[in-house]
Every structure is written in structure tokens, then in C-alpha cells.
């Protein structure tokens, strides 16, 4: 099942979207002022690939559809099927 992750389009989140573009089999779209990250498989975003510090890293996620958070720590945000 395709899962979707939502992120608000604010300057702090752009580098995270850039990192997500580098992930395999991930599509990034827009829905209103949100980035929508879609994939047929759960994803894992390494924090260091994003270049963001903790305040943004731990608050950038706006919504999940078909996934839930399996890991969200200093190393990565990883989703799993809900």
C-alpha cells in the first residue's frame, strides 16, 4: 500500500525535501502548502543527510497516511505500514 508523508513548505524544511529526493522509489508532490512524499514501501530519512538541527528535525513531520512512525531519533525518521 502506498504511504504518504506530509511536510509543510517552510524554509527550514527544504533541505529535508532535497534529501528525500535522493531516496529510491520516492515521489514528491505538492498539496496546497505541503510537500507530499509518496512511496509504495516505508521510507527512512537519515537525519545527517538533511543537514537540519534538532529543533527542525523533531518537528518537521506534519502528517502520515498509511504509515506510522517506527523510529524518530537523532539518526533517522523511519516509517512502517500502519
Amino acid at each position, binding site marked *: 500500500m502506498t504511504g*504518504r508523508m*506530509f511536510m*509543510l*513548505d*517552510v*524554509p*527550514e524544511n*527544504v533541505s529535508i*525535501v*532535497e534529501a*528525500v*529526493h535522493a531516496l529510491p522509489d520516492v515521489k*514528491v*508532490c*505538492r*498539496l*496546497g*502548502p*505541503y*510537500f*507530499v512524499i509518496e512511496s509504495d514501501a516505508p521510507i527512512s530519512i537519515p537525519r545527517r543527510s538533511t543537514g*537540519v*538541527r*534538532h*529543533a*527542525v528535525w523533531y518537528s518537521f*513531520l*506534519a*502528517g*502520515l*497516511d498509511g504509515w*506510522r*512512525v517506527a523510529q524518530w531519533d537523532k539518526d533517522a525518521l523511519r516509517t512502517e505500514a*500502519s
Partner: protein
Amino acid sequence: MKHVRVGLVVPSSNAGGAAAALGDRHLVTGVDHTAFPTFDPAATVTFYRDVLGFPVVHSICAAGWGPAGHPDFIHFFFDIGGGDRLAFFYYFGLAAPDLADGAGDVYARFPADTPIWFVHSRHLALHVESQEHLLEYRRRLDASEWPVEMQIQHETIESIYTHDPNGYMVEITRAMRPVTPQEDLDANLTIDALVDIAARPGHSMNDLLVRKAELITERAPRWDADRAGDQPASPQPAEAGR
């Protein structure tokens, strides 16, 4: 005839008309005052008036009245900018709490093992317009008995923190950039999602993120269309990061 709290007598028909005209407006204009007790008025005045430079703008000397045992008191106010005021009550003869054990301030005491993030969750944050102004307050505090305990800068705000003589945590903060319109939308979706899930037993961040995704799907396209004056659009490939 209808009596309103300020003592004016307003014909009920006019009052109804006013309610109709004002019913959808956000009418308040800021913090008239927020009030805290103090057991050390001298240090409180030193901290707010002499160190931070907040003028004393109002005070009330009142004999104890009303409930039995109410002590005589002084209610005094500092100007915290923008027409807003920070007020204190000093009650004559009221014994100060024992601060030797536990955590918290003179108003709220907690067991010593209370997590500090919870103790600090209630605090007063004052706004400044620039880093220059923030650092000026840092300079004033660092030269006093209440130096800055922490300075934090991240992508959206920069803040300094200390505790006043009463143990109340005081933050002075500046925004690193203006709040964008989409952040107002996002805030409302977050709060609507939280309200929706808050009654569920064992609710978690995952529940909120799932509910918020539903609200985003429902409302975000309409928000975009409203701003652009167009019809709701299908998701388009993102430009950022390409």
C-alpha cells in the same frame, strides 16, 4: 436594560446590535496584565525595574477585604511593552513557602523528582524585535544577580532564559523570520487533529499525525485555491529540491 460590567447602562436593543456587529471579530488587543504572587518585593522590583528596565506603571495599596483572613496587599505592575503589563501581588504577613526541598517557584512547588521540562513548561516569554535588543537584555541580566542561564538559537527563534527572584522562569525571545501564512494553516490543522484525538484512550503522536494527514488532504487544496483564486488542483510535482 442591560448592565455591562463597566457599569454603563446600555439599551438591550443596542446591545444586541453591537453583538451582531462584533460577533465574528477578534477584539482583544493584548495582555492587560498577568499576575503572580511575590514574597520578595524588593528583589522583584530590582529585577524587573532596575535590571531589565521595565517601568512601574501602576500599583494598588489595598486593605484586606472580602474573604475572611485576606491580608492587606500591594498589587503592582510593570510595563512589558506593547501596552501589556506584568503584575505582582505582595501580601503582608503571608508566610513564604519553603523552597529548601523540591522544584518550582514560590507559587507552585513540585516534588524534587519532577522532570525539569515540566517545571519549566509554564513560563513568561517576552518578545524583542532584533538580536541587538536580545543581547542588550542579556547584557543587563549578566551584570545582575540573575544572569542568563541559557541562550538558544535555532532556525526559527533565538531566546535567553533566566529565573526571576520568585523562581518564575522568564524568557526573552526574537523570531528569526516572520511567521508564514501556511504556518497558520498548519497550526490550525494540528490543533483540530489534537482536539479530535484527545479523547481517545492511549492516544499518541502517531494518532495525531494520521488525523492531521486526513485534515491536510481535506483542507490544504482549498487553502491553495483560495490564495490563488483558482479551483482546487491535483497534486503537482514539487519544485523544491529539484
